[in-house]
């Protein structure tokens, strides 16, 4: 190629670069409530003919059926509104949502959860919903304190603004294999297991299970699947139960504390005593196949209750109270409104229906077996989410609302740090869950990784 050709090519690229406008800069201030005008109930056209698009996570058939049930109920109010469901893989959640938002193909209503919704907030993808909520309160359609478990609504907030409206509560509970524990220590041992039980109670049962398995030479069977090395909903509350914290509200690393060490030692003790498998080793037992006694999980009972190895053998109980300030991992899954949507009012109408008494009941009919966020849906006689689960201690999900926390430290920094902080936290708990590793060395190594991730 001649030199002039290179010059022409370079110049073309340069000029072409100049032709493409840079993406717009935008900043979102959540220190104050956002306000904009929304229609009053008199202004709403219930006969509007339109199609709402809604994003649903792929691979969760329950989410589809529960939304379908809610749509049927919604169509009683808005008979001419149809829905277009779009699915996305949760593994690529952020990049997919971002790309669809840029390409203007993001649905009107977007499924999200805590803490993923923070990404939608930081990128201006999610619409602040305060004007709609305030309007609904003024119109007497609901009252936050009276009708809802507000700590769960607050998990969908950033600063002063609501963004993600939860469709249910997600709380970590302890699944336990009643049959196995009865074999280990009879009803006396089972008596320890009740809502509000303590970590010491939990350790008594773990110890009995350990001895039982040892007597059967099942040294690679363990009492509990702790779910702690890859899930903040277990690790972070344990840290907080002793007063430890990862970041302060200024986004500064504060993990190097005596409280953190106490929490990490508790976790390390679980593996040194052989109650939980040491990281790097593979357990011969698992709750799912009926060979571990406990599992920390937030899933619906229905996920495990029908499994051949567990049918009729399991129940749930609250997460054991630990440390001076017990905490229970919690979170939300729910829906946000696309800030670019041209059907914001109608989208809100659907979300408001989801959290209404009727909407919650309809979703439960459609397969939502997690606790409702409504306070008026706790009676097994009337609440659909409880129906058919009489044999289970469903109060476990609702126990200790004052203890429930989400991974709030992630909201103290830009969402670009989320994956790194998540990874560093998991690394830390992975290392302290290794019986051959020293807790202090693991913490020091963890601190370096946290600092590195915060420098990125």
């Amino acid at each position, binding site marked *: 190629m001649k030199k002039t050709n290179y010059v022409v090519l370079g110049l073309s*690229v340069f000029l*072409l*670069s100049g032709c*493409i406008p*840079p*993406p*717009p*800069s*935008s*900043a979102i201030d959540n220190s104050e409530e956002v306000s904009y005008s929304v229609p009053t109930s008199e202004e709403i056209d219930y006969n509007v003919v339109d199609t709402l698009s809604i994003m649903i996570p792929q691979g969760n058939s329950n989410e589809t059926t529960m939304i379908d049930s809610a749509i049927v109920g919604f169509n009683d109010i808005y008979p001419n509104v149809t829905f277009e469901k779009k699915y996305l893989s949760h593994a*690529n959640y*952020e*990049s997919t949502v*971002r*790309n669809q*938002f*840029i390409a203007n193909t993001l649905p009107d209503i977007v499924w999200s959860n805590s803490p993923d919704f923070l*990404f939608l907030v930081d*990128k*201006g*993808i999610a619409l602040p919903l305060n004007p709609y909520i305030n309007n609904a309160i003024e119109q007497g359609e609901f009252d936050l304190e009276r009708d809802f478990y507000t700590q769960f609504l607050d998990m969908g907030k950033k600063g002063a603004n609501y963004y993600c409206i939860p469709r249910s509560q997600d709380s970590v509970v302890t699944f336990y294999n009643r049959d196995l524990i009865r074999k280990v220590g009879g009803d006396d041992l089972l008596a320890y297991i009740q809502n509000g039980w303590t970590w010491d109670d939990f350790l008594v049962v773990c110890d009995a299970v350990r001895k039982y398995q040892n007597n059967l030479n099942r040294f690679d069977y363990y009492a509990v699947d702790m779910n702690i090395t890859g899930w903040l909903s277990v690790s972070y509350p344990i840290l907080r139960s002793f007063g430890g914290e990862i970041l302060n509200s200024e986004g500064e690393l504060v993990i190097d504390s005596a409280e953190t060490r106490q929490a990490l030692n508790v976790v390390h003790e679980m593996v040194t005593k052989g109650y939980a498998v040491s990281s*790097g*080793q*593979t357990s011969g037992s698992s709750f799912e196949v009926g060979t571990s006694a406990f599992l920390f999980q937030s899933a619906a009972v229905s996920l495990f209750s029908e499994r051949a190895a567990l049918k009729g053998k399991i129940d749930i109980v609250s997460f054991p109270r630990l440390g001076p300030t017990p905490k229970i991992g919690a979170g939300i899954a729910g829906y946000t409104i696309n800030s670019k949507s041209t059907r914001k009012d109608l989208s809100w109408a659907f979300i408001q229906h989801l959290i209404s008494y009727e909407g919650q009941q309809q979703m439960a009919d459609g397969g939502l077996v997690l606790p409702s966020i409504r306070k008026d849906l706790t009676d097994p006689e009337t609440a659909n989410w409880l129906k058919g689960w009489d044999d289970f201690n469903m109060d476990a999900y609702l126990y200790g609302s004052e203890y429930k926390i989400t991974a709030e430290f992630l909201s103290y920094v830009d*969402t*670009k*740090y989320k*994956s*790194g902080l998540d*990874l560093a936290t*998991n*690394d830390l708990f992975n290392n302290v869950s290794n019986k051959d590793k020293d807790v202090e060395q693991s913490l020091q190594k963890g601190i370096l990784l946290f600092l*590195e991730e915060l*420098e*990125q």
Partner: protein
Amino acid sequence: MKFSAKTFVKKNINGWLFNLPLFIGLLVFTAIPMVMSLLYSFYETDGITAIPVGFANYIRIFTLHDSQLPRILLNTIIYTLISIPLNLVLSYLLAVLLNTKVKGLGIFRVVYYLPVIIPGVVAGLLWKDIYDNTYGIFNKILSFFGIAPQTWFSDAKTAMASLLLMNVWGIGGGMILWLSAFKNIPAQLYESAKLDGAGPIRRFLHITIPLSTPMIFFNVITSIIGTLQYNGTLTFAGRAGRGPDDSLYMYGVKIYNEAFVRSNVGYGSALSWVLLIVVGLITLVLFKTSKWVFYGEDS
């Protein structure tokens, strides 16, 4: 002859139409994204909002201000320096073996090529199982021979070696290319050499190797490009493809993590352009020093 635009269009319209899908594809899926990424590399952007930062992203890379980069570069260099020669030599030797008259040759060729047609994600998950500390087949084989089980991907000390070993599994791809090169070597040359008394080693050294240098050259270049871009660990290594203690954290994984996990599109774009420049320079150097490649008597 006088140039007529009408005649020119009439004469070439079919050719243009046949080329149009490819042209549009290249424009939409290659040229425009490349130009956009060049533009983004001068911004701190997540693709939605953007702050112009000039050369800051590039300065961050070249001054190694990103504390992860030294480790990532070291991993990538080690992986490239070992993986490429290892795979080239092994696939070459395998092709030489399978170029001889052995019974069941076709079966061997199919068996060695099979891993190449298995999708990368599936292969990654398969190897994750093979390397499992407790239930993996490798540790079971080792324990059968009384050898202590290894930690494979789960320990920083053994992760890179495990990855290199895993990649040997795919040498069938290179083998096919070598075999095609061998098939192009005229049989008369071997016959003449035989008549002149050259043994198999001499024929290999003086005919097979020199006449397969164009393919060696091609394989070296494509391997360097592919290896420097490698991000296969995303599917099996854990910790967002970084491996234990970042022991498998490669440059390609870093680009992916910055652009798609951290939504740091500007920095990810700058990293991509630096890689493009590095690959371009290496390719240029290889071409400039390619006198050893034998393209025939005329070359």
